[in-house]
């Protein structure tokens, strides 16, 4: 059965996280958790049309997602330019702006804001004081727990698997990913976001009766 636009909106999660190699374990854990909880993982990485302006991709995805995971932990200076990357705070601002000014449909948007430490980001985005920041400490299993618990409260869904079950499933998925990729001659370290979401989808379907 095809979902209506509002059903898809309610189940869609904008993942606004760093894409770099140092963060990839956390990004993958967040993506897996969103899908294991039966939500739709969305990212700017999913659109590979180079002709579309990046900020337009972000606007489109924010408009289509009621939920958003925003990780503000990447504040290190870029090695080449010695400047921090501000994309994640900008995209959080777009999300919060849509919630505030986007009309009735967007008023019920919900954001999970993550950082390595709970109160650290108040030092570099003081306007965020008062928001409930969750800490992941750079650990994938803490990302799993925070994302799962937030989805439970933000959606009022009561039948989500527990954090330990999701972590166990994710560990097993990671263990089997090299074998799966080998069958298609894919490099598990070079999978696109779309490849990953499809692999997770089929793996979850095959491992859990629906």
């Amino acid at each position, binding site marked *: 059965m095809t979902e209506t636009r509002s059903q898809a909106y309610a*189940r*869609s999660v904008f993942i606004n996280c760093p894409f770099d190699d140092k963060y990839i374990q956390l990004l993958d854990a967040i993506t897996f958790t969103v899908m294991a909880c039966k939500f739709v993982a969305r990212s700017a990485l999913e659109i590979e049309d180079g002709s579309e302006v990046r900020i337009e991709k972000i606007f489109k995805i924010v408009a289509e997602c009621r939920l958003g995971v925003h990780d503000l932990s990447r504040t290190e200076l870029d090695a080449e330019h010695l400047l921090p990357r501000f994309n994640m705070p900008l995209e959080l601002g777009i999300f919060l702006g849509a919630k505030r000014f986007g009309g009735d449909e967007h008023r019920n948007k919900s954001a999970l804001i993550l950082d390595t430490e709970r109160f650290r980001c108040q030092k570099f985005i003081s306007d965020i004081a008062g928001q409930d920041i969750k800490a992941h400490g750079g650990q994938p299993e803490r990302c799993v727990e925070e994302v799962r618990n937030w989805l439970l409260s933000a959606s009022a869904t009561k039948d989500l698997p527990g954090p330990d079950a999701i972590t166990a499933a994710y560990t097993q998925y990671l263990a089997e990913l090299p074998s799966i990729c080998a069958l298609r001659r894919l490099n598990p370290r070079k999978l696109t976001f779309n490849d990953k979401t499809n692999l997770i989808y089929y793996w979850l379907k*095959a491992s859990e009766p*629906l």
Partner: protein
Amino acid sequence: MAKSEKISTIPPPKHPPTSATRSELRQAVREVIAARDGRTGNMNVLKDKKK
């Protein structure tokens, strides 16, 4: 969707994969899981572990 409505299915990803077709990815996943189940029996990893 009503806020309290039970979510019973995993929605498929929104965009197509780029390195292989969906059927190729699905087949690869099935082969690996079939091999695993042949070794270890049922592995419904999320079943019966709901909070």
